[in-house]
């Protein structure tokens, strides 16, 4: 019975992945002429947009990932142990909860020629009475997209790294290094990073895969002409005449991501080789306080940009009039919220229903799986959960959509919820697995000795002890579900208008103030969940433990 549950869970998880991959491979190779006529690959390679969009995706994806990694290392080396570090730890989790698309919209409001940055400095400092025509956002080089990805992915990587610091004994390593006379940066590069990097490598690869294949942020911040490769593919997939081309492109994208991964592996080897030689050199290095300060400045700037982007969403959502170059709106209003509450309500309910379902399904599935694993009826399959995060969404979802069209399951609420589950379960399992495996088995034994059965122990002992990671996992699942654009778009057949869909669809033309309200609303849901995840365990534990 237990084994059956475990196997069923794994099947439910693997089925769409397998179907998705086959559903992409088959039309691409011309085996389904009725669904997707034509030779996908030859049409793809003949398309004039092919090479420019591939180049753009590689450029933005790789640069954004490298910058995120550098900024993460910079934060670790220069901020760890300082006041900035405490501040970072407080600010990063909620910032991480804000959906990519929402922060992208805020960033646009911030850095465009008529954006807040220019408004704040005009005309007093800059002398501009009209927006400068020196740059445009989104720019054709993809730099606004890169900035958008960096400000979103750096917190993710930094938090992943921070979570691993205790495991690599960072304080002890720093102490030993300093005693031996190494400069702080050297302590990190010689002693800590070689241990830390392997632990954040998978997160880095997830970020790389995401950056190379992201759709919603690329629609909002990326150039349109040509767009990034995955946006280009998305424009092809809805037309049956070019589905074969889109599917072929999705395979090329997956292969591209794999090739970039291989480069990363080679690069690791090379760096590792150089680093191990340098480690033996014994050079202590000098402390570089100025560099340290300016690096802290860069990290602080990055965070300020993110926070300002989110703040700007809220400011615009209460704006009646705000013309260039005023620093703040000249007229404020509640109208953007109240006059449209009806229109916001329906996508918000759809979003919430999907998110709550996803949370319930993902958390209970993760508990079931980890319990099966603990009792030895299923093996540890941590690698499996990473699959949907490493395969480009486009590759998986084009195929899944084709299969859904064929079976008539597209547009079903269940199909959309299933896809959200697939994308949130990995995070939930991986967050809970740590807590699950660390929980002292003696709690279990003690309860069993007192005569409690399995279910009683689970609900009265294990789950209450783990309430904190459970709430965190639930908040992450909710944030993941709220931000899902592509699965909802492709599998929802237009039947499930979530905030994520509304935001991207309406972005082209709708009133900026309404867009801001939509994005603010989309950020608010996961933010509330994150606060709840902090507060609920405290109240809960407080109530249970007699003072």
């Amino acid at each position, binding site marked *: 019975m237990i084994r059956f549950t475990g196997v069923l869970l794994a099947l439910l998880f693997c089925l769409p992945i397998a179907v998705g991959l086959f559903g992409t491979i088959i039309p691409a190779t011309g085996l389904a002429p009725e669904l997707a006529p034509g030779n996908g690959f030859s049409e793809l390679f003949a398309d004039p947009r092919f090479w420019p969009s591939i180049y753009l995706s590689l450029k933005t994806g790789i640069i954004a990932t490298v910058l995120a990694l550098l900024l993460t290392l910079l934060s670790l080396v220069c901020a760890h142990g300082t006041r900035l570090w405490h501040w970072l730890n407080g600010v990063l989790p909620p910032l991480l909860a804000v959906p990519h698309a929402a922060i992208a919209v805020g960033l646009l409001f911030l850095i465009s020629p008529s954006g807040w940055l220019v408004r704040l400095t005009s005309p007093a400092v800059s002398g501009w009475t*009209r927006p400068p025509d020196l740059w*445009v956002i989104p720019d054709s080089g993809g730099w606004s997209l890169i900035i958008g990805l960096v400000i979103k992915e750096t917190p993710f990587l930094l938090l992943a790294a921070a979570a691993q610091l205790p495991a690599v004994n960072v304080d002890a390593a720093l102490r030993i290094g300093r005693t031996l006379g190494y400069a702080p940066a050297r302590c990190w590069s010689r002693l800590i990073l070689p241990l830390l990097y392997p632990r954040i490598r998978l997160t880095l690869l997830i970020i790389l895969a995401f950056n190379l294949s992201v759709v919603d942020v690329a629609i909002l911040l990326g150039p*349109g002409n040509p767009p990034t490769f995955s946006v280009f593919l998305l424009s092809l997939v809805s037309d049956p005449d070019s589905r074969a081309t889109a599917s072929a492109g999705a395979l090329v994208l997956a292969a591209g991501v794999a090739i970039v991964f291989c480069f990363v592996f080679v690069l690791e080897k090379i760096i590792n080789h150089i680093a191990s030689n340098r480690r033996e050199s014994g050079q202590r290095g000098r402390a570089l306080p100025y560099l340290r300060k300016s690096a802290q400045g860069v990290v602080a700037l990055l965070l300020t940009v993110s926070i300002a982007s989110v703040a700007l969403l809220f400011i615009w959502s209460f704006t*009646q009039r705000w013309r260039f170059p005023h620093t703040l709106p000249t*007229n404020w209003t509640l109208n953007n919220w109240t*006059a449209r509450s009806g229109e916001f309500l329906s996508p918000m309910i759809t979003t919430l229903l999907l998110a709550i379902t996803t949370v319930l399904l993902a958390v209970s599935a993760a508990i079931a799986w980890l319990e099966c694993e603990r009792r030895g009826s299923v093996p540890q399959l941590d690698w499996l959960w990473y699959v949907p995060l490493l395969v480009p969404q486009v590759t998986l979802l084009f195929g899944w959509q084709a299969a859904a069209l064929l079976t008539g399951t597209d547009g079903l609420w269940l199909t959309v919820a299933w896809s959200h589950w697939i994308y949130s379960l990995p995070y939930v399992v991986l967050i809970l697995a740590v807590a699950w495996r660390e929980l002292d088995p003696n709690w279990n034994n003690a309860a069993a000795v007192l005569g409690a059965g399995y279910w009683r122990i689970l609900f009265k002992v294990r789950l209450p002890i783990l309430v904190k990671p459970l709430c965190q996992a639930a908040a992450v699942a909710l944030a993941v579900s709220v931000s899902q654009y592509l699965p909802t778009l492709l599998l929802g057949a237009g039947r499930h208008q979530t905030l994520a869909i509304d935001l991207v669809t*309406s972005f082209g033309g709708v009133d900026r103030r309404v867009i801001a309200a939509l994005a603010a609303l989309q950020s608010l849901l996961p933010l509330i969940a994150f606060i709840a995840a902090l507060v609920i365990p405290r109240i809960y534990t407080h109530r249970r433990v007699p003072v």
Partner: protein
Amino acid sequence: MIRLEHLLNHCKKLRNLSAAVLISVTPATTSATEFDAPWEKILDEAKGQTVYFNAWGGSDRINSYLSWAAKSIENEYDVKLEHVKIGDIAEIVSQVEAAKAVGRDTAGNVDLMWVNGENFAAMKNKQLVWGAFAHSLPNAARLQDSESLTMDFSVPVEGLESPWGGAQLVFIYDTAVAEKPPRSATELLEYVENGGRFAYPAPPAFLGTTMVKQFLHQLTDQKSALAQPVDQADFEAVTTPLWNYLDALHPLLWGKGKSWPTSAEKTRQMVDDGEIDIAISFNPNEASAAVKSGQLPETVRTYTFDEGTIGNTHFVTIPYNAKAKAGAMIVANFLLSPEAQARKADPQYWGDPTVLAIDKLDTAGKALFASIDLGPWALPIGSGKTLPEPHASWATAIEQAWLKRYGK
């Protein structure tokens, strides 16, 4: 190896079979709607249906208008209207086509769609439209007698789509910034050469294509070729002046011909931000609505090129495999009611010109239209000459040629 074709055929048969079984079990309830059935019967059948109306969702005013319509329709007819907000209706045309390819001939996802021009032409061509339902709508009796309502981009409408509103390319400029706005394509080039700021959306964005068609209409010396299908014309000869013009214009645009506004609404936003001087719109009353809702300064005015600008009519149509056809007809009819058309024409709500002939309305209907205040910001009534749309086949040809030249 099992060929997927066989599998597909198998699925198709299975689906047809299950559809057949369903139909035989539930005799003539939903799927048997006739487009020429008596209106009483349509009203009856529509009760309780949900109509998925796939319409562009990029304008908050249009979205608000449709949620108002949904409320009225639900109260009056017991039909639920769901506005499926989409980015480009061409994608939905493809979806319906895909459904036809896999044999989903009943219970389709789309009940009503907002189309015109090449999308209607494609649907008519591929037999994705349902039937001449538009002739059965009671409110169709009060439509204008205009060729624009019977010929959609030179393609005969034949009742396969029902008119919804009129449109004309107009320019909105800020008098505080531009004293003398350009009144022709040539003047526009001079305007940007002298530091004026302008941008238009990149085709295939709807108004981007329209703008290019406008340029073509003004610049070509073979205007008559535009009314014929594109394959009957010497495309190179007709369009060469256009490309020469755009080659000169693009480097001087905001974004330097490398980045483009995503939509016409975006150009309106850019005028408000001061990034550009002149916005384009397909709605002569847009500026009025925008000023009233605080999206443009009161100093804006609307005008057209002296030679006139391209205008057309937009429609709604019912796909052949729609699930709620009766409901869709109710919605299409409601959209033509004087009440709905007058609200749509009011810039306070949307400001989209009506397709009804005001003189055919009763006193109450006339009063509804008389009470609309356009303000000084809209295109003064009767001031802009309308140029006909080129034949529907030109749109795709122009878009592709444009993308090939400037899409890299």
